[in-house]
């Protein structure tokens, strides 16, 4: 969303917190946290102008470690709680954040409905292809064959294709980046924030504890930037986007896969906001007694 509040001069310092992180050394979540901060600084969004709603998981603890409005909620439900907050206070920049289990596993239903509604929020998925906080079970994005305590012979199901799914579900901005490249990640997040409508960022993330193979080097060799390899790529074309999303050369394209600026957002179409665009929490609660009498009169 494009926040309507005035931009502030903010620096990384404004986001600094004294809270000690509990992430493992080398966890990709550090890079993602950095990227989020950088994106906010670059977009001129102050800590009090943003609301980061997260689920439960390692990555969902992110709002605990920076100085920012946050709400650390339930596993899988950040997606819908964030939209509730957004609809009631449309002036906050709402960012939903959660792990791959949180977002694509238990929470996928909410996510898909948010997408088709074009809810004006950003959803960042900290996608480490594993359940971190519960100690390393396979996740909906895990590769086939991935061996974990709940898939001792290797996972026998196909992982979710987040990009293709988002495209088909109607997301109007689909981006992907990598925790090990905070600069790129920050830029994608900022673009997502500045997009009017629903934006998903599939943020590939290293988990050195439970997904040892997919370390920073591995990702560096298994990712490429769309803009570099495909200079003619048109993110407005859904068919191209689908082809790219379905392409299975084992590598992950990074960048903006898809962008559609033509769909109205959900909140801007809401009747009450069409009459008065201030957030509903700023509307007066006072009852017009005549109006109230007229409501009662319908029952006589």
């Amino acid at each position, binding site marked *: 969303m494009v926040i309507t509040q005035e931009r502030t001069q903010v620096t990384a310092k404004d986001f600094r917190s004294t809270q000690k992180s509990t992430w493992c050394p080398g966890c990709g979540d550090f890079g993602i946290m950095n990227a989020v901060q950088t994106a906010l600084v670059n977009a001129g969004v102050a800590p009090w102008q943003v609301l980061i709603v997260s689920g439960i998981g390692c990555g969902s603890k992110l709002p605990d470690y920076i100085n920012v409005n946050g709400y*650390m909620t339930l596993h899988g439900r950040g997606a819908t709680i964030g939209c*509730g907050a957004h609809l009631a*206070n449309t002036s906050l920049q709402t960012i939903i954040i959660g792990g791959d289990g949180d977002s694509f596993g238990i929470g996928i239903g909410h996510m898909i409905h948010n997408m088709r509604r074009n809810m004006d929020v950003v959803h960042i998925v900290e996608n480490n292809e594993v359940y971190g906080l519960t100690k390393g079970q396979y996740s909906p994005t895990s590769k086939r064959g991935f061996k974990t305590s709940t898939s001792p012979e290797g996972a026998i199901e196909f992982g979710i294709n987040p990009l293709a799914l988002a495209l088909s579900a109607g997301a109007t901005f689909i981006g992907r980046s990598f925790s090990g490249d905070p600069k790129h990640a920050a830029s994608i997040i900022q673009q997502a924030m500045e997009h009017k409508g629903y934006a998903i960022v599939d943020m590939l993330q290293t988990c050195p504890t439970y997904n040892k193979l997919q370390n920073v080097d591995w990702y560096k060799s298994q990712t490429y930037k769309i803009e570099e390899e495909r200079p003619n790529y048109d993110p407005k074309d859904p068919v191209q986007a689908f082809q790219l999303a379905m392409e299975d050369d084992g590598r992950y394209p990074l960048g903006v896969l898809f962008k559609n600026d033509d769909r109205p957002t959900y909140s801007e179409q809401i009747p009450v906001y069409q009459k008065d665009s201030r957030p509903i929490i700023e509307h007066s609660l006072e009852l017009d007694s005549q109006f109230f009498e007229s409501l009662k009169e319908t029952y006589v």
Partner: protein
Amino acid sequence: MAQKNKISIKIAGAQGQGAGSGGQGLAKVFKRAGLHVFGIFDYMSLIKGGHSFFQLTLSDQEINANTEKFHIVVSFDPQNVQETVGDIHTLQEGGLFIVDDSINLKPEIEAAVNEVGAKLCKIPMIKLGTEIGGNKIMANTVALGAVVGLTGTPFEILENIVAENFAKKSKEIADKNVAVAKAGFDFGSQNLKSEFNFSMPQSNKDKVAGKMLINGNEAIAMGSYAAGCRFFSAYPMTPGTSVFEWFTKDNAKLGVVTKHVEDEIAAVCMAIGAAQVGARAMTSTSGGGFCLMVEGLGLAGITEVPIVVVDAQRGGPSTGLPTRTEQADLLFAVNSSHGEFAKIVLAPGTVEQCYEAGVRAHNLAAKYQTPVIILTDLLMADHLKDSSKEDYYIPEVDLGKVVSKEELDKLGEDEKYLRFKFTEDGVSPRALQGHPKSVHAPATDEHDETGHITEDASNRLQMMEKRMKKLESAVNDIKGPEFHGPENADLTLIVWGSTYGAALEAVQLFNSDEANKQKINLLHFTEVWPFPVKLTEEALKKVKLSMSVEQNYTSQFCKLLRAETGYVPNKLINKYDGRQITPEEIVREVQKLLSESLVAA
């Protein structure tokens, strides 16, 4: 107390054939004519077809339940007439059974009419409907007109209501319907009035005509709106849907955000998200949807977000009896969600109490920053009753302890706003996110005063105590049970929520019958959690013999009562077939218990 004069009418028919709306229309007619009314539509879990009926009771005094027996049974549609044997058996001796004259009644039907000593009235519904209205469907209107006519109610009232109802359609359609109604009316007053040997209740137009005819769900919605609710997310589920639909229907006019969401998890979660940033928010559902909300209640509990959830109970378990009434979610609601946190449960028993519950729920939620559950049921949700406009007052909106933007502005550089500050009463002053001085991030993990996650044992103890203290504070706000009926009664009915209506009628029925030497009264609970222990104990001191009446199998309220006070009623009455208990059933049980205890004494 003088005996009430009651006349009861039943309109039977297949669903989708107008028995429901017809009954509602009649209720309005009689109310405007100055009679107190009580009405409910008994329908099946299907859209068209089946066998359903509207039950309407008219009285010269306020009335809170239908009677067991009816003075008039009308059967609307030709097909369904053949399924009315059961309905005929609910006729009073001398009552009228009104059907279309072109129908070839099955022998059982006539036999049933004879058996109960009722009168069979065949009237030209279809004929008049077709001839005057040009449409078979208008047969219904003929029948309604006939009922109005035979009861001696002025035609203008019916005329106005028919005209109002069809105003949205064309003038022509409205006129046709009025004409058809008139034909029915004339037929009724000319041919049926003389057959109707019951005296109609005394009407009081001045007092009653201007009253509202509102059901419990509408009243909860209106109360919630009046108390400042401006965000409503929900997923349809009978009988909870209509609270939501009150908001959606006029959302633009009301100035509210409503969201029909993908499931009940989203319903409660979106409301919590909205409430977290400062909206007064709610959702409504029934038991099955409530199941999906209980994790959300814990979220609201630990992050101390005010939120209102309506659980309109229906026959369970599981899908159960979707369109029938029950009070079997009480212990589930009170104990809902894992772990322990403050939660408030209201259980209004009249439409006026529903309005008040709507108001109080939002105010209590804000005051104690905690979820509030309104436990209602299909009977409460759906029944119509005349209700005084004054009861729908403009309430105070209690925002609870808030830290305003101005107060935040004044905070010094080093003063940190503490969202979960430890306080005497457990309630921390609440500042909204969106101000430079109120930046915070609450967690559903155990947290410290700022909201940051911590596992520290002593913080845990303090934080648990802070949150649980809210229950101790809130209990002072909870209404105790109220007696209705004479003091010093020989027997007290113990009821909660919607069973109040039938119990009240039972009290009046029993006490006004001179054959009964003893007197009974009732004790009604409308707010059940935190349990008002002291007020209950005081009230119970005045109880001699007691009998509980609950619409469930396991006497859930009595379990709660015993757990909290040790008290056990002398007899437990349970009804669990999804049909509301009648005053007459209660009176029979009272008589049994009184005679048993006489023997025992």
